[in-house]
C-alpha cells in the first residue's frame, strides 16, 4: 500500500464528509442568507453529528472487521455476520426498555456487554480457527437468537410504543443524534481503531500460524481477548447510538486487503478509512434517495452488501480455506 493510495482515500473521505455536511445545500444556503444563527445551529446540531457518526461508525466497523477476519483467519468474518451487532442491539434494548436506563452511558454499557456476550459465545461455539461453515452457522444462530430476544424484550417492555420507538434505531440510523450522543459513540470507536492499529503487526504474523506467532513472542490468548474486547467496545458503543448497520465491516476489509497485498493485519488502517468512506457515501445516498428520511441507512447497506456477500460466497468458495 503506497502513501499515495492512502492519501487518495483520505482525500475522498474528507470530500465525502464535507459533502455530508453541505448536502442538500439549497435549504442551508437559503437559511444562511435569512438567519445565519439558525443555519449554524442546523449545522452543529443536525449535520455535523450525522457526518461525524458516519465517519466513526464506519471506521470502527472497518477496523473491527479487518481485525476479526485476521483473528479468525477467515475473510467472511465480520461484526454483523458473527452476531456482534445483534448482540449489541439486544444489550441496548434490554438496558433501555426492560431495565429502564436510557442515559447514553447505560445504553453504551449494555450494548458493549451484549456484543461481548455474542463474541464470547461465538468463540465457544466455533472455536478460534473456525471453518467458514461453522463460523457462519454459529454467527447466524447467535444473530437469530439475539434478534428473537430483542423482539421479546420489546414485547415485554412496559412502554406500549416500544416497537414503534425502536424501529428506526434497530434498522440503523444516523439521523437526529446530538453532538453529545455522537461523542459517546466517537470516543470508544476511535479508541478501538487506535488500539486495533497497534495489533497490526501481531495479526500479520498470526497469518504464519499460531505456533510461529508464539515463537515470535505473541500471546495468542491475549491477542484474541484484545481483538474481541476492542471490537465489542467500538461496535457496541456505535450500535447503542445508531443501531445495527450491516455489511460495512465485511466489505471494507476485503477492499482494504487489495491495497496490502492480502496482509490481514496491516489492512486495519485502510479498512477503517474505507469503512468510514462507505458509510458516509451510503448516508449521502440515503439523503439523495427520493424516499427521503424514511429509509434507514442500515437497510441501504444491507441492500447493497447482501448481494456482494452472495457474490463473495459463490466466487471465493473454493479458496476460502487454503
Amino acid at each position, binding site marked *: 500500500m503506497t502513501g499515495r493510495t492512502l492519501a487518495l482515500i483520505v482525500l475522498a473521505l474528507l470530500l465525502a464528509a464535507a459533502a455530508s455536511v453541505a448536502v442538500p445545500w439549497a435549504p442551508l444556503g437559503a437559511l444562511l442568507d435569512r438567519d445565519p444563527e439558525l443555519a449554524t445551529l442546523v449545522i452543529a446540531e443536525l449535520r455535523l453529528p450525522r457526518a461525524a457518526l458516519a465517519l466513526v461508525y464506519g471506521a470502527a466497523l472497518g477496523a473491527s472487521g479487518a481485525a476479526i477476519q485476521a483473528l479468525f483467519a477467515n475473510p467472511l468474518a465480520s461484526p454483523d455476520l458473527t452476531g456482534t451487532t445483534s448482540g449489541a442491539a439486544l444489550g441496548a434494548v434490554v438496558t433501555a426498555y426492560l431495565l429502564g436506563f436510557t442515559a447514553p452511558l447505560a445504553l453504551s454499557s449494555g450494548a458493549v456487554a451484549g456484543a461481548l456476550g455474542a463474541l464470547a459465545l461465538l468463540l465457544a461455539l466455533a472455536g478460534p480457527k473456525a471453518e467458514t461453515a461453522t463460523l457462519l452457522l454459529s454467527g447466524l444462530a447467535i444473530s437469530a437468537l439475539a434478534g428473537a430476544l430483542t423482539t421479546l424484550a420489546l414485547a415485554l417492555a412496559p412502554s406500549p410504543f416500544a416497537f414503534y420507538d425502536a424501529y428506526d434505531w434497530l434498522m440503523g440510523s444516523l439521523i437526529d443524534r446530538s453532538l453529545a450522543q455522537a461523542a459517546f459513540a466517537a470516543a470508544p470507536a476511535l479508541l478501538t481503531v487506535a488500539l486495533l492499529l497497534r495489533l497490526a503487526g501481531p495479526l500479520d504474523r498470526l497469518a504464519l*500460524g499460531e505456533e510461529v506467532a508464539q515463537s515470535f513472542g505473541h500471546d495468542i490468548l491475549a491477542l484474541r481477548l484484545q481483538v474481541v474486547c476492542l471490537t465489542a467496545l467500538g461496535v457496541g458503543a456505535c450500535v447503542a447510538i445508531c443501531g445495527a448497520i450491516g455489511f460495512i465491516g465485511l466489505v471494507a476489509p476485503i477492499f482494504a486487503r487489495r491495497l496490502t497485498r492480502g*496482509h490481514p493485519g496491516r489492512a486495519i488502517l485502510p479498512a477503517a478509512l474505507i469503512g468510514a468512506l462507505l458509510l458516509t457515501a451510503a448516508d449521502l445516498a440515503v439523503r439523495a434517495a427520493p424516499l427521503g428520511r424514511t429509509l434507514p441507512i442500515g437497510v441501504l447497506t444491507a441492500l447493497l452488501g447482501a448481494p456482494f456477500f452472495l457474490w463473495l460466497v459463490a466466487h471465493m468458495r473454493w479458496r476460502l480455506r487454503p
Partner: protein
Amino acid sequence: MTALLEARGLALPRRLHGVSLTLAAGELVCLVGPNGSGKTSLLHALAGVGAPTGTVSVGGVDPRRLGPAARVRAMTFLPATRELRWPLHARDLIALGGADAEEIDRIVATLELEAVADRRIDLLSTGERSRVLIARALAPRPTLLLLDEPTANLDPLWQIRLMELLKGEVGGGRAALVAIHDLDAAARFADRILVMDGGRIAAEGLDGAHVAAIFGIERAAGEWRPVLRLPAGRRSSP
C-alpha cells in the same frame, strides 16, 4: 567450544519432563525418536510455544525476553504442521519472518523459489509450499534454528540439498536443532544425534541396544529392521 544454546529443566505439562541440553556453535544436532516421544514438545519449549517452564539462553540471552525483531535474529522455529492460515504471496510470507530484502533475495535464490515468489502460497505444490515455509525460518539467519521435520514433503534431491544447506548454515557461530524421522539422514548429516523417548532425552547416538529398545528397530546389514513391537510370529528372524 562455547555453548551457543543452554537450556535447563525445560518442561511442558504431560509432554516434556525436565529436559536440559547444550548446543555448541557450529553444531547441527538431530533430534530423533518415535511418535509422541517429545521431539516437537522440546522444540516448542525452546521456541516459547505453549507456556513452557525452564530456562533458555541463546548466546547468553534469553530469546523469550526479546521483541519480535530481535528474537528472529536469535532464534526461528519451523513447526511440523505446515499450517496456512492466510493465502499470502510467497515472498510476503517469507518477509513476515523478519528478514530484510537482501536476505530474502538470497534465500529465494538458494531454495530456487524465484518462479513462485510472486504466487499465492495456497496455489503452490506441497513441496514448493514447504520450501517457502523453510525459507521464512532460514531468511533472517538466526543464531539458532529450530526445525521440526524440515525434510517432510520434499523430494529426495531437495531432502539432501536442504540437509547440506543446513550443514553450511550452522557455520560461523550458529547452530541448528532438527527433529527428523529419517535415521539415515540423521546419521549422515548430524554432528550429534539426540534420541528422545517419553518426554526425555533417552540417549545420544544411534548405536547400542537402547536404540533397538526405543524404536523397536535395529540396524542389520546396513538396513533398519523391526525387532520389537510386532505381533508374535511376525517378528523377523535374525
